[in-house]
């Protein structure tokens, strides 16, 4: 068979070498699961980052359905030095979507590995393959009337727990720190070995999804935000569905209120009175997810002026900050905690409390309540209509859960975004001690000039936050090398030492989170 010339090749791999590898992949997977035609690859190249698609174009995509196939694939990749970028559902929007971190890497698409291996509703855990979506899990739980609840991020319905957890994503329920709730994973290593973490290596063990630590070093975290293995199964804990769920919103009028909000919330989160990952959303986040668009208010280019935002608040009743939280438990527990919470806000003398009964089906309350109770939706994608044009990058610095720190970060981010003609569209996701300060850098990707501004803006955000001792917890593939530098040289040396030990041919997603044996030089 005459091999067509591939438009994109893996770095340092010749056309002939690549063709030989493709033939081997076909022998393992069948022709239908080795994708090389441009119309087959284009869905893997849809990105939201401020760079040409070409920078993240794959050379091929493989769809595997078994662990054994993946073992064979990594052996072929090693033999031909083909870099392979595994994806689960490929829904990592704003972080690189399904596209490889470097041009020319082949995609290993695991969406077809979509088996819910087990849900144990007594012990409250699940074990799933990478292609399982939260939507699929939700349907399964509903159909089987299982008394458990999911936690997921906003693209809930179409994204999945393996990808989200491997990228250390977060959700909005009491189980919202997803990696903390992960228990046991199976990983195909670069040499083809299949490694099970925790109790998973013990023959006959029934505690793989029960006890996280196992014996000796606990390595699960090493495989997240990394490129040391391909996760083929993951266990995670499910929250028992509470008898009573009480979502609520508290609306604050002024930007400066963030200080008091956070300082009031911290003890309530620390004590577990409010158990879930609370959200404090800015006006424009609220506006976007409630279907307001910038064009309804402003026709001029640049950032949306504060005067317009205040007008939007007046028109709609949205706050400068909009806090969403929930209580879970028995009626008695919820009643007691509700009194503690409402007393705290009354004592503060600020904040308008809205209950589910008052909000009814109004958005964005409805979708927030759904996310906090494990019901999937995609309502938050309304954010993408705020400015339009399909550009989105998450700038997500970690902050102390301290009011003064949140105010400082919010002001710094807003100043830089406005300087570049973009809006501060943000939410804080509140843990007891930390906050994920999540900012959606929205821009019109069809406008070349605005795209350049967005890129410059993101670089400046990283630089200026770093000067203050702040760094992001996660970032899109365009900036992963840059962010790795924020965390210091020793960490990088260790990461590359591990890479050399586990993947000496550098075939697993080189460049992911800045780990790449070809380009990294010890400082």
């Amino acid at each position: 068979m005459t091999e067509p010339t591939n438009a994109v090749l893996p770095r340092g791999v010749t056309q002939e070498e690549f063709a030989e590898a493709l033939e081997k992949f076909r022998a393992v997977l069948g022709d239908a699961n080795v994708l090389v035609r441009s119309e087959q690859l284009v869905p893997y190249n849809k990105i939201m980052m401020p760079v040409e698609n070409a920078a993240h174009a794959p050379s091929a995509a493989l769809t595997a359905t078994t662990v054994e196939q993946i073992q064979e694939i990594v052996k072929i990749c090693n033999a031909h030095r083909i870099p392979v970028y595994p994806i689960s559902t490929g829904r990592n929007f704003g972080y690189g979507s399904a596209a490889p971190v470097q041009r020319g890497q082949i995609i290993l698409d695991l969406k077809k590995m979509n088996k819910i291996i087990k849900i144990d509703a007594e012990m409250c855990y699940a074990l799933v393959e990478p292609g399982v979506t939260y939507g699929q899990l939700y349907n399964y739980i509903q159909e089987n009337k299982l008394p458990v609840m999911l936690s997921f991020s906003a693209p809930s319905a179409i994204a999945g727990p393996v990808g989200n957890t491997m990228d250390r994503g977060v959700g909005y329920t009491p189980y919202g720190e997803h990696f903390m709730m992960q228990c046991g994973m199976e990983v195909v290593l670069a040499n083809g070995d299949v490694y099970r973490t925790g109790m998973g290596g013990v023959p006959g063990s029934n505690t793989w999804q029960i006890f996280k630590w196992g014996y000796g070093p606990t390595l699960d975290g090493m495989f997240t935000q990394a490129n040391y293995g391909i996760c083929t199964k993951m266990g995670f804990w499910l929250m028992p569905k509470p008898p009573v769920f009480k979502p609520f919103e508290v609306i604050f009028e002024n930007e400066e209120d963030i200080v008091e909000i956070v300082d009031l919330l911290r003890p309530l989160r620390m004590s577990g009175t409010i158990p879930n990952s609370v959200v404090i959303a800015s006006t424009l986040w609220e506006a976007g997810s409630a279907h307001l668009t910038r064009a309804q208010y402003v026709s001029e280019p640049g950032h949306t002026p504060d005067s317009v935002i205040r007008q939007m608040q007046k028109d709609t009743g949205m706050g400068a900050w909009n806090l969403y939280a929930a209580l879970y438990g028995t009626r008695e527990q919820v009643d007691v905690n509700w009194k503690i919470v409402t007393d705290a806000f009354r004592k503060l003398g600020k904040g308008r409390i809205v209950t589910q009964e008052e909000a009814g089906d109004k958005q964005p309350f409805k979708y927030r309540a759904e996310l906090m109770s494990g019901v999937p939706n995609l309502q938050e994608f309304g954010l993408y209509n705020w400015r339009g044009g399909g550009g989105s990058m998450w700038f997500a610095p970690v902050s102390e859960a301290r009011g003064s720190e949140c105010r400082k970060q919010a002001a710094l981010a807003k100043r830089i975004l406005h300087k570049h003609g973009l809006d501060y569209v943000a939410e804080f996701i509140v843990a007891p001690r930390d906050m994920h300060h999540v900012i959606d850098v929205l821009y019109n990707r069809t406008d070349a000039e605005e795209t350049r501004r967005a890129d410059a803006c993101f670089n400046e955000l990283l630089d200026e936050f770093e000067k203050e001792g702040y760094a992001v917890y996660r970032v899109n593939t365009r900036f992963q090398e840059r962010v790795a530098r924020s965390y210091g040289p020793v960490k990088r040396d260790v990461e590359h030492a591990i890479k050399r030990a586990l993947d000496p041919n550098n075939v697993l997603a080189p460049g992911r989170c800045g780990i790449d044996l070809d380009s990294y030089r010890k400082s």
Partner: protein
Amino acid sequence: MKRPRDSISLKKTLVTGATVSLAVLVAPALADQQPQWRSGAELYNNVCGYCHKPEVGVGTVLQGRELPVEYLKVMVRNGFNAMPAFPASYVDDAALAELSKYLASLPPLPPKPTPPPAKPRPGASP
């Protein structure tokens, strides 16, 4: 497509104890891989509709517009602005054909009433 069943799923789901209630609690693994989407309605309700149903309002309304499958395919494979692209592993061509038929079977939306006058845009300029 047939695929081998996972040994864990068999082993663990068979050990479910004797009672019916426990059998329900320890839910069995899914059977061998099913066709990707059982119908156009299932695909619409579990993926597209989350943005495109009229009551959601995130994406353009699709129902009742008799959109040809070729058009759907271009949009789904390429994405458009913020709409993500879906490879065949997620939504295959057969499912798109079913989706096209299903969307055509849904009633079109009634024409929109005349919108109220646009809101003033106070403070549009800093």
